[in-house]
């Protein structure tokens, strides 16, 4: 019996999704959504968020679409310019740099972050003494402010900082981690990956703990080794968690701002690290081109939308919900 056929059978597997929602699902049997009459309550409880979204997000989002067709500095009345902003952006070297950096950042940081988080989650998913302390430690970056983190990392990356001191022990010549335009973005990726780990680790850890030990027992009886157990039990049963963290990481990476803002701003390594959201901020709020910034926002939105749709389309091929 293959592990996949096994996986498709048991309703216990729903628990793999972890947490309260799984048990709630089991109580409601085959029903996937709220029962009749529950909608009213659902809407009531969702109302604060929905109203907030409609007023504070949907309105401005639609407004930026209109503004992206204008030249507007926020202080004088906008003038209609058609699609000029969009065509200008495609010939704007700084925008294209930001676009390239954003893709590079996403392509590297998302897989790197997920793989490291999975490894770490498995490492702390052990029954050893003091494990809750270790887990707490990994959780810390999540509750530390980006600014504080960036200051510490700036020091570690500084010419006389931790990394160069460590490197010198192994005979490595000192690197200019942030100052060197080639190294700057990778250095920031390393920092923000570290910063983003705990959130993913928590989700993976919950997923791992939702995998019933019977499956491991079963494949062990079949003679599966460590790798086989990981490959045929852990990974398939964790795909919902991987899918979920993947989409959050993807969208988050396209929108990266904090780390760039803090690390790149004081004595920026010359545009080498600007990303799309940084470009939007700078263009709109520093350089008085709010129309252009709105157009850039819509290009970013379309990019994120396309990637999200593609990502969801692949879901059926590799995500195992039951």
């Amino acid at each position, binding site marked *: 019996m293959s592990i996949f056929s096994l996986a498709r059978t048991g309703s216990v597997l729903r628990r793999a999704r972890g947490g309260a929602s799984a048990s709630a699902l089991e109580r409601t049997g085959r029903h996937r959504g709220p029962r009749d009459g529950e909608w009213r309550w659902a809407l009531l409880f969702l109302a604060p968020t929905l109203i907030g979204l409609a007023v504070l997000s949907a309105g401005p989002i639609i407004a930026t679409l209109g503004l992206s067709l204008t030249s507007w*500095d*926020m*202080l*004088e009345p906008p003038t209609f310019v058609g699609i000029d902003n969009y065509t200008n952006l495609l010939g704007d*070297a*700084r925008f294209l740099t930001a676009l390239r950096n954003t893709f590079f950042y996403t392509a590297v940081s998302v897989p790197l972050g997920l793989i490291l988080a999975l490894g770490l989650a498995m490492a702390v998913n052990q029954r050893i003494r003091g494990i809750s302390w270790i887990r707490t430690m990994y959780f810390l970056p999540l509750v530390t402010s980006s*600014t504080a983190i*960036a*200051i510490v990392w*700036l020091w570690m*990356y*500084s*010419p006389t900082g931790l990394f160069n001191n460590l490197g010198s022990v192994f005979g490595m010549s000192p690197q*200019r981690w*942030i*100052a*060197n*335009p080639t190294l*700057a973005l990778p250095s920031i990726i390393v920092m923000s990956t570290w910063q983003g780990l705990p959130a993913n680790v928590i989700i993976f850890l919950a997923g791992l703990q939702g995998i019933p030990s019977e499956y491991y027992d079963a494949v062990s009886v079949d003679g599966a080794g460590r790798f086989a157990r990981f490959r045929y039990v852990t990974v398939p049963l964790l795909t919902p968690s991987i899918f979920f963290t993947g989409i959050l990481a993807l969208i988050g990476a396209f929108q990266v701002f904090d780390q760039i*803002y*803090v*690390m*790149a*701003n*004081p*004595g*920026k*390594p*010359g*545009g*080498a690290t600007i990303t799309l959201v940084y470009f939007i901020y*700078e263009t709109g*709020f*520093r*350089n*008085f081109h709010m129309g252009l910034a709105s157009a850039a926002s819509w290009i970013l939105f379309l990019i994120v939308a396309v990637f999200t749709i593609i990502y969801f389309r692949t879901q059926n091929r590799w995500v195992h919900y039951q």
Partner: protein
Amino acid sequence: MFRVSRVKRAMSLAAIATVFAAGCGSTAVTPSPSPTPVLTAPATGASQVAAASPTLNPAASCGHYTGPAATISYAIWGDTTELANQQKIVDAFMSMNPTIKVNVTVADWDTYWDKLQTSLAGGNAPDVFLMDGPLYPDYQTRNQLLDLTPLITRDGFDTSQLANLGVQDFTASDGHLYGLPRDLSTIALFYNKKMFDAAGISYPDATWNWDKLAQVAGQLTKQVNGQTQWGFYTETTDMENYWSELVWQAGGDIVGADKKTLLIDSDKAAQGIQFLQDLIYKDKVMAQPTPGGTGDLFENGQAAMEADGSWLVPSHIAAGIDFGVAPLPSGPAGQATSVNPSGVVVYKGTKSPDAAWEFVKCYTGPQMQQMVANLKASMPVNKDVLANVYAKSFDGAQTFADALAYAHLKPSFRGYNEFTTALQDELDSNVFNDNSKTAKAALDEVAPQLTKLLGQ
């Protein structure tokens, strides 16, 4: 949000709580309990100031406000220390003008501009707000600021009592003032007396030129107790700290008087910037700059000289550095330095223009300017206070004050930020943080983009 190197004016009045507490005790303005609040005479040097600038029209001086009672808001950038400093100045104002209440709000440099733009767009801006010289045209030309010239005329306010360059910077193209300068910063050469004494080298003075600077900086660059002592330090991330001065000293300029002609791509301008690159990579008398900053190596006792701004005085004092101040070494085309005024401007949509104007007027008057001088963090814009209080307030203050005589205004035009970002990015990447290009090659590279930006 955090931002190290924009510090400058963000820090200009800030980061100096201790110094303020120590330095201001002797000369603070004390609100008087008497019905007509008066100023206590300052203990040092400034008694003649109070007597200075006699005026026939009482409306031209502070404390004769007859307009409607009002509450106005005053927004500044800075930190909590700066807020405390400004609050004291505002308290002094309110004791002189009991019918006006002023609420001070502070934000860090970046947040300040975000908030300002959104509040202007929303028609809800602070009545009075702080304005950076280079960014003033962006707001003035967009019709956001109250024209103060009619009020200046009405009250017979004499702008010639303020530093000329400061007034010039806030004079719009129509000849009107849409704000008044509040304080100034100039750039000079700090030197560490102990390091010079230890090496038996005489202190820098007005006779110094570039060659002398490079030569002495070379002598002072050495290993001391296993640590590098650098001969020289400056910040490369903003033209104001040093490189615009070098461009002027070489006989070049950044933009033309029309603010439409690009001049930074000349050989002379490149020569100035090349001198700074050479200090780092050829003479090796200055540590290679790094984004995020190395910290102020002069202030940390790791560099013997620093070309930098008057705003650093309080923190240099607080750090316990025994320093002197000399004029910047002169270049092939002579002496030059940079001056950058901060101003106070009034929102065009204010409901209390009279009270707001009263505050602006008082801020440039002798009483409040004396409090600015006592902070030592920037130079008072009031000529009398500058000459009689500030210039005598610490060893070297006179050098900063005298520098006004040969100072150029920091460039100021609509679109300054976008222009300087493009220029500085190129220089940071290829000339200062790395020497992948010569100054000339980098300037040639970025010139077309800069020309396009000036044409917008």
